[in-house]
């Protein structure tokens, strides 16, 4: 049985949201243009919006079933919802807001753990009006976790938040994912974030599921992200030097990354833009470059993306193939280098092209 099974028909202003999802993954990203119905989907699952028909089940427990006449009220659904605007209670301080989550039976231990994971202890006595946007989200997330949910819904705000600000919640989402055994349904507008947090992605457009699958395959596929796609490398810091560290990406890739205060043994996530990777078709690893990362790889496929081409390659190590990486190329380069699936190449990128997303 799937952990989360959702089948919904819901009338929205201009169109109808119709989707059927069977989700076994621990964290699922919902991606798509604004107005695609992402928020409405979360609200229907949380019981804030009544679908016209359908069925929602979490861990075998039926929350809504139009055919059987089941429609649990929001408070009985066991769903922790973090809406876009956070909806913190403005007349309470942070402590009381987080504790409000305990109304549904979350214990003291859960409260303490949520405070630790989301680093809220220094903020406990603050009024919520004085918090920054990122802090508010953390408080709302802690409150949701405190309610001992069987499913966590996180709706990321889009409006007005620039990328660096938005990314500030990323480390916390990754940590929540590690520290709490709760499936997460996560609406995001940032492909990098989805890759970092989710192991399954659903793309929604005009109320329909248009693509679904592993993050790289879906987000790197045609018709979703732009050419400014960012690969996400996850690994353990093996050795750290003066200004660089070596990231060990399973099963056996070694990537030079900027130090950024990392210590040996840290698990870190790095972003690497598709446009920042060079391809060499020379049989030997190219020499005499300032770039410190030269990885043998094999071309998996090539996809046209507007005027550009996105090449998917799998880096190779003695221990086996590593995670797929996307490389942005011009059609001219593809022709000249005679790039085709199966071809052996080297991927070249600078240490500085890898930027730290978060330490887990």
């Amino acid at each position, binding site marked *: 049985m799937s952990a989360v099974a959702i089948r919904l028909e819901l009338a929205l202003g201009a169109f109808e949201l119709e989707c059927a999802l069977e989700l076994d993954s621990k964290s699922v990203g919902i991606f798509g243009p604004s107005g695609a119905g992402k928020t409405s989907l979360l609200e229907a699952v*949380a*019981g804030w919006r009544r679908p016209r028909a359908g069925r929602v089940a979490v861990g075998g427990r039926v929350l809504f079933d139009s055919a059987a006449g089941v429609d649990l009220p929001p*408070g009985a659904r066991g769903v922790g919802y973090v809406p876009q605007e956070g909806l913190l*209670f403005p007349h309470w301080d942070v402590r009381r807001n987080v504790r*409000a989550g305990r*109304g549904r039976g979350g214990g003291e231990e859960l409260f303490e753990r949520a405070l630790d994971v989301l680093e809220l202890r220094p903020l406990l006595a603050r009024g919520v009006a004085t918090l920054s946007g990122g802090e508010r989200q953390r408080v709302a997330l802690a409150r949701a976790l405190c309610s001992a949910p069987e499913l966590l819904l996180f709706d990321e705000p889009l409006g007005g938040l620039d990328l660096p600000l938005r990314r500030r919640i990323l480390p916390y989402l990754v940590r929540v994912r590690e520290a709490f055994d709760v499936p997460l349904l996560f609406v995001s507008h940032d492909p990098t974030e989805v890759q970092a947090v989710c192991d399954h992605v659903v793309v929604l457009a005009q109320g329909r599921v248009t693509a679904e699958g592993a993050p790289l395959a879906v987000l790197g596929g045609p018709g979703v992200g732009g050419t400014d796609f960012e690969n996400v490398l996850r690994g353990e810091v093996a050795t750290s030097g003066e200004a660089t560290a070596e990231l060990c990406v399973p099963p056996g890739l070694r990537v030079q990354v900027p130090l950024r205060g990392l210590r040996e043994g840290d698990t870190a996530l790095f972003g690497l833009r598709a446009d920042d990777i060079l391809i060499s078709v020379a049989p030997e690893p190219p020499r005499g470059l300032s770039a410190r990362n030269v990885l043998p790889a094999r071309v998996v496929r090539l996809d046209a993306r507007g005027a550009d081409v996105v090449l998917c390659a799998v880096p190779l190590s003695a221990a086996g193939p590593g995670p797929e990486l996307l490389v942005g190329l011009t059609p001219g380069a593809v022709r000249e280098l005679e790039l085709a699936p199966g071809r052996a190449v080297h991927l070249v990128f600078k240490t500085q092209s890898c930027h730290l997303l978060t330490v887990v």
Partner: protein
Amino acid sequence: MDGSVLPALSVTLRVALAATVLCGLPGVALGYLLARRSFPGKIAVETLSALPLVLPPTAVGFLLLRLFSLDGPLGAAGLSFDVLLTWKGAVLASAAMAFPLVARTARVAFEGVEPRLETMARSLGFSRTRVLVAVTLPLARRGLLAAVALGFGRALGEFGATAIVAGSIAGETQTLSLLIYEELNLGHDAAALRLVGLTAVLAFGVLFAVERLLRAKGVAR
């Protein structure tokens, strides 16, 4: 100062206070119902409750008089409560006139509370009562205080309905507004003017407090 001023001031304050107490809770309750619930006949209830705002106060007074007189519907049923020509009548008349103002202002105060906050509280497992007590009322607090203060202000200046139901008995039902009328009738223009000044100060104080309450922003909204 004229010897009748202090008793009139005292009667005015006591009557207005009692009237506020009498109409405060039902007014706030009606404001909540109108803001948050839908029910059949809602528009009729809304209109009916606003009627004293536009009816001549004398008309309201006359209706109350008929209602509570010994041969009226309530009086005949033994429910006259001894209101006619007593301080209770002044309280009743003032409360009737202040009630719509309290209800309407309270309604606006409740409408100013983000309904999604209430849904969130429900979602977190709060009971309906707890949502009301812990979320809605505290968030509407300032608007509700303003509603009650406006009701008090309205009761302070009540004249028409009070005159008909309670008369103008010095020290018992004679409020400042009734006293002004009496002084004018007696040709004591200077005394009337002094009383007008006094009521203006009272009214200004109340309205100033209301403005402060309604304008305050931020955490304690």
